[in-house]
Every structure is written in C-alpha cells, then in structure tokens.
C-alpha cells in the first residue's frame, strides 16, 4: 500500500511537468499580454515593464526560469496584482476556498448519502420520487441562478444572513456560499447512492448476509451501503478537487476572496504566472484526490488490493 502510494506520487511528477509545459506555451499563444490595456502604453514604458518582469528574454529562457523557480516552490510575481506574489495570493485565497469547499463537500456527502439511501430503501414510494425530483432540480439549476436567489432571499428580503462578503472567523458568512456549492453535489451524490444501493440490495453478498439472518440494519449499513458508496467515492475525488480550489461563480456572486476567481481573472488579464499557479494547484489537488479515492476503494471493496 505504501509502495503503491509512493509510486503514484512519483508518477505525478511527470504529469505536473507536462501540464505546466503545455499551459506555459498555450497561454503565450493567446493574443495580447499582461500590460496591454485599453490605453496602450508608451513603447518605451512597455519595454521597461517587459524588462522588469523578465518578459523580454526568449520564450525558452522564460520557461526555464519559471521551471527553476517552480522547483523551489516560487510561483513568481503576479502581473496584475503587483503588490503580491502568486504565493501570497494563494496563501490568503486557498484557506478560504478550502474552508468553503470542505464544508460543502461534507454537507453534500452526508445529506446526499442519507437521501440516496432513503430513496433506495423506499424505492418507488412518494418519498423516493420527491428525492429524485429534488435531485433533478439540484442538478439542472446552475449555481449562477441559485447564488443570487439565495442572496436576495436570505440577505435582502429576510435579512437573516449577509447578502455577500467574507469573514474567516464568522460562520454566518459561510452559510449561503456553502449551500450554493453543496446543492448540486447533494443532488448528484443522492442519485449515485440511490442507484448503487438499489443494485447492491439485489446483489449476491447482500442476499447471503440476509440468509445468515443478520439484522436488517447491519445488512443495509455494513453490506449494501458500503458497496453502494463506490460510485459516489469515484465521483467525489475530482469533485473534491474542484470544490476545494474554489468556484469562480460563487466567489464572484458572494464577493469571496477564494482562488477560484484567480483562474479567470488571470486568464483574462494575461497574468501568466497567476494562471500557471492556479493550474499547478488544481493539478495537484486532482492528483491527490484521485489517489485518495483509489486508496479508499481498498477499504470499501475487499476485492480491491494494490499489493
């Protein structure tokens, strides 16, 4: 198991390297540069700026410099937020995104699994239909609709919660963003768990467990649900990576200082280092969470062994 984990982590290095290389050259293909404004700069000044930010050397030398710095954990200076390095930006933004993302993930998983299991156990009942209906609604309603509605209803009309803004210490500011992030995930997880549970309940090992005369609760929780978790866990890997690295929509609508917005702001502003940094962070999260998922399989499904 440990060997497997180490091997997977080692194989992540070339993956990240390829991603970094592709992104580096792809973003340079986009027209314009970080200092192209609506008011063009004087050519003299542009030359001074390019020199100050090492943009005057050849693309190859810039690439090698970037790689060298990256190996030392230095993501470089931000071009569009010039009082900060990309590391600074992530140091303030990542905790916000991780906090919101993990709360949303937790909420979505707990509620999604419970709803999915209930729906499966009461298959084709009105409760089941209600849950499936709710799930369909959750999947089909985009967060750029949900977020302003929640903010309007709870923030402006009722005045129960802040309509937007952020505080790292006051949970009242977390409620609406977490709900918005969790809602579509609740729906997906509930559907996945429901489907898998329905199937698991009919499977051989559950029938065997019943035949042994095990109590219904044990059969459902220990045998059926455990097997039914597999699809949900597979889904949760990349989803967790996505949630923890922030959502541009939710952050913009609620005005949150997470890192989700940096990807878009960086791309639009041709902030090369910021885009690269975001790509690296997201890639690392995806790699780590896929690994976690694969390791979780061994606990959920006795048939999976890596050694």
């Amino acid at each position: 198991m440990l060997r497997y984990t180490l091997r997977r982590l080692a194989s992540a290095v070339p993956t990240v390297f390829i991603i970094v290389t592709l992104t580096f050259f792809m973003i340079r293909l986009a027209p314009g540069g970080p200092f192209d404004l609506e008011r063009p700069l004087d050519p003299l000044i542009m030359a001074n700026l390019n020199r100050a930010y090492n943009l005057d050397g050849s693309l190859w030398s810039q690439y090698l410099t970037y790689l060298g710095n990256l190996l030392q954990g230095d993501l470089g200076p931000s071009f569009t937020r010039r009082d900060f390095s990309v590391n600074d930006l992530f140091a303030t933004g990542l905790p916000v995104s991780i906090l919101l993302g993990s709360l949303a993930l937790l909420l979505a998983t707990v509620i999604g699994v419970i709803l999915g299991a209930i729906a499966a156990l009461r298959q084709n009942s009105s409760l089941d239909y209600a849950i499936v209906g709710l799930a369909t609604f959750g999947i089909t309603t985009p967060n750029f609709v949900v977020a302003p509605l929640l903010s309007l209803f709870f923030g402006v009309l009722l005045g129960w919660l802040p309509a937007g803004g952020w505080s790292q210490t006051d949970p009242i500011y977390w409620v609406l963003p977490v709900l918005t992030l969790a809602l579509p995930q609740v729906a997906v997880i509930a559907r996945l768990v429901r489907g898998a549970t329905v199937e698991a309940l009919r499977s051989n090992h559950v029938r065997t467990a019943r035949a042994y005369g095990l109590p219904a609760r044990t059969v459902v929780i220990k045998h059926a649900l455990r097997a039914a978790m597999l699809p949900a866990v597979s889904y949760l890997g990349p989803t967790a990576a996505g949630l923890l690295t922030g959502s541009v929509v939710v952050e913009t609508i609620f005005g949150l200082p997470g890192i989700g917005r940096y990807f878009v702001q960086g791309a639009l502003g041709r902030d090369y280092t910021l885009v690269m940094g975001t790509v690296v962070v997201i890639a690392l999260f995806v790699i780590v969470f896929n690994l976690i998922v694969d390791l979780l399989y061994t606990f959920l499904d006795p048939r999976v062994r890596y050694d």
Partner: protein
Amino acid sequence: MTAHPFRTGLCALALLAGTTTLASAQVTLVRGNDTDPATLDHHLTSSVAESRILHDLYEGLVIQNAKGEVEPGDAESWEISEDGLTYTFKLRQDAKWSNGDPVTAGDYLFAFRRIMTPATAAGYASILFPVLNAEAITAGQKQPDELGVEAVDDHTLKITLNAPTPYFLELLTHQTALPLHQTTVEAEGSNFTRAGVMVTNGAYMLESFTPNDRIVMVKNPNFRDADTVQIDRIEWTPFEDRATCLRRFEAGEVHICSDVPAEQMSYMRENLPTNLRIAPYLGTYYLPVKTTNEGPLSDPRVRQAISMVIDRDFIAEEVWQETMLPAYSLVPPGIANYVAEPPMLDYAETDLLDREDQAKALLEEAGVAEGSLTLDLRYNTSENNKNTMTAVADMLKNIGINATLNEMEGAGYFNYLREDGPFDMVRAGWIGDYSDPQNFLYLNQSGVSFNYSKWTNEEYDRLMQEASTTLDLAARAEILADAERIFLAEVPSIPILTYSSRALVSDRVQGWEDNLPDVHYTRWLSLSE
C-alpha cells in the same frame, strides 16, 4: 430602502463581525469599487478604481473638492511664471506623513524622479511628460536628476515644463502626481505598499489589503486636516459583479456602490430613486472609421451619412438603459477650459427620418449605390457593445449600407486597433485623464497611437499645435473649438455616446456631490445614524 429593525440589527452585527478588534463607536464606511487596484504603488497605476483608493491614502499638491474642482492640497499656494513654463508651489508647513514626518518638497522631488526612472517601469508616466525632460528620462536618454523639478527649500517646489500646459494643475490631480515617503520607499523597495509599512500623507492610512475581499483604511491622525475627517474607517470592497454590490447595498451592508448593474436600471429607478446617482462623465464612446481604407470610407460625406443615421437616443435609452447619454461631439459637455457653446454635429435636433433622407443624398453625391457598401464592424466583448453595434448595423441598413459584426476579446482588441488592423468601423471609448478638451481632441492628431481612424488633417494639427502654445485660456478654448469643428465636419470618428457616472449612495451618506470627473474623496463624506 425601507428600514427593517431586525435586518438592521443583523447588519450591524455583520459589520461588527468584520471589525472585532475595533470599538463599535467608530464610523465605518463600506465603499464598493469597480475592482481591486493592481497595486498601491501609485506610479504603477492608471485606472479610476485605483485613483479612488489612492486619493484617500495620499494628498497631492492640488486636490479635488466635493464638486470635483481643483483646490490647494499640500501646496497652499502657487505662482505661474508669465511664459507659463514655471510653477512654484509653496507647501504647507503643517503637512505631515502618517508617521509624523513633515511632507517636504524633497518627497515630491523624489516621487517625480522615481516615476520617470526607466527601472520604475511606470505605465502612466507619460501623463507627466509636459514636465521638462520627463520623456527623455523615461527613454533612458537623460538622468533622473535632469528632470524639471526642483526642491528650492523644504517647502518650495519648482516645476519647469517643456511647453506651456494650460491644464497642468488638472494633471496634478492625477494619482501619478502624488508624493512618496522617500525614506520608506528607499528602505523597503517594492514592499513599501504593504500594510504596516506604507506611510501616506492623506486623510487615511492603510490597515490591510486582502485581494478580492477588501482594503481597510483608518483615519490618519497626523493628517493636517484630520479634525475635519468624519469617517474613521473605510472598507473599500471590489465588486466585479455589479449586481452583488446592489444586493449588498439593499441589505444595508454597503453604503456606496461605484457602479450599478445596467440591466437593473429600471428596478433601481423605481426602488432606489434617491440613491441612484447618474451624472455626465468625462468620457466619450465613439466609432473610429478607418479613413485610409480604399473606397468610400475615405470620403467625409460617406462618414457623415453613417453618423447621421445613427439614432443615439435609441442606443442610449434601449441598449444602455440611460447609463449613457447621446453624444453629438467628441468633447464631453461641461468640460473645463472650453468655450461656452461647444461645437456639435448640426443634426442633433433634426428628426431621424429627415436625417436618413439627407444621408441618402450624401451617399448618392459620393457615388455609393444602395447595397454596394459592406462594412466590417468590430467591438470588444461585452453584451452592451454587441447590442450597440447590432443596433448600428440595423440603422445602416436603412440607408442601404450592409454590415458584418465581428467580436474580439478585450486583451488583443486595442492592439489590433493601434496596429492598423483591417477594420472599417470599430467601437472605442475614451475616459479623460483630466478635465480639458485637449485630452479628447489630441486623439485625432496625426501620428498619435490612439488615432485609430488614421485620419490626418493639416489644419487640425496646426490648430492643436497653436492651442498648445496659447496661454490665454479663452483664446485657447476658441482654437480648440475650431479644431473640433473640423473634426465634426469630417467625422473620422463618430461620437455616439457620452459616458455617465453611476453610483448608488446610501441616504445615510452626507456630502456626496455628483461631478463631471466623478471624484469623491472619502474625507468630504460623513455617515449619519
């Protein structure tokens, strides 16, 4: 906005939550801004959003009062030499930095030299190019100590210009002309803008800067006019999504929004009539026509026909929901240093159907047959730009001109315009850096990179040159008006809209006055209960 006791209570709680370390008696103003500043190093800034922040932190030689007019700032008085080339500023004895140091002429000298130094790479240094040798220093051809700025003594600053610049005092209101605390900048290098390090001489000083969240400023106790400053603390909050600012404004969490969501104008008109502030602004939205293209567009009659048939009222009202005003001149109305009756396109008051007939006649005169001309219209991505250009294309159809629409992403767009891309007609906008007609009219001078239409007119260039050496402001205004008349007769660029400033201002905010440059230093504001 109706008061809702329960909500107000919670909002107060919410506001307090963000300020747990501070006593609740402090007055905190939450001000929305268009976006975060790219930096607090004012030499590296250019935008309006940055200017708002920096003018709360710093005080310049001159400032703008609540009406947007130039007033003495750190300089209590100044003398202008007869040839208009030398400005001698007397600095106030009581001007202080936030750490208690006196503000000296040396701090200004240091700042002016720094912005021109090539290594600073100041994007907007060119705004101060009227200062003697500034351009050559930026180009690396001269040394920074050759700049035409001299600290005669601690409280006397002498600035020498290349040529008379009648709008020089207006220029000095720009954030690039703010001073710097020399010892801090020299000791800290690029870290001097960090909270806890930054030393400022304005009404406020920096407490914290969290990207995409807020910039917190607190009152500067050493500010010379600190007694008159009524707001203790400001939370400058960036709102890229204007609708978010509107919601938070309605929830009572934000006191001022620097901009509003255009698509909700009618809602705000109805529900927030006392809070919605719309005022003419120092900017023009116009359509440069490539005059060097082969064919009809090089003919002024064709361009005039195109201009005539554009229904500006429709675009302002329907597309922009009156967040823009119809424009019939390049120079926005109400600008300083201009004639009382500025030139305008003479068909402003003519009925649109008559204008169409006149336009058709002009096209016929120019030999453009109906349906024979197809224009390539370009705009940079934005819903309103798209709708504007679609409307223009429709209007052109009325006089038998076809148009194809092309959208381009923002980052490459203006390069394309400057680099003489093969367009026929494009969308462009210009926000004045200072309130003076020269700042708009120079866009059409030969060889200026913003001259997207590539129009050249000797008489126009001559008038602009003459205006630049005319010291008498009234005579200069007449010359500039003559230049604009030539421009409007040939319309190489078609002005269609005047920008407006739009803001939401809480009923609790006192001292806000709508003004053309749209500047509202927080020190002029107060917050009632």
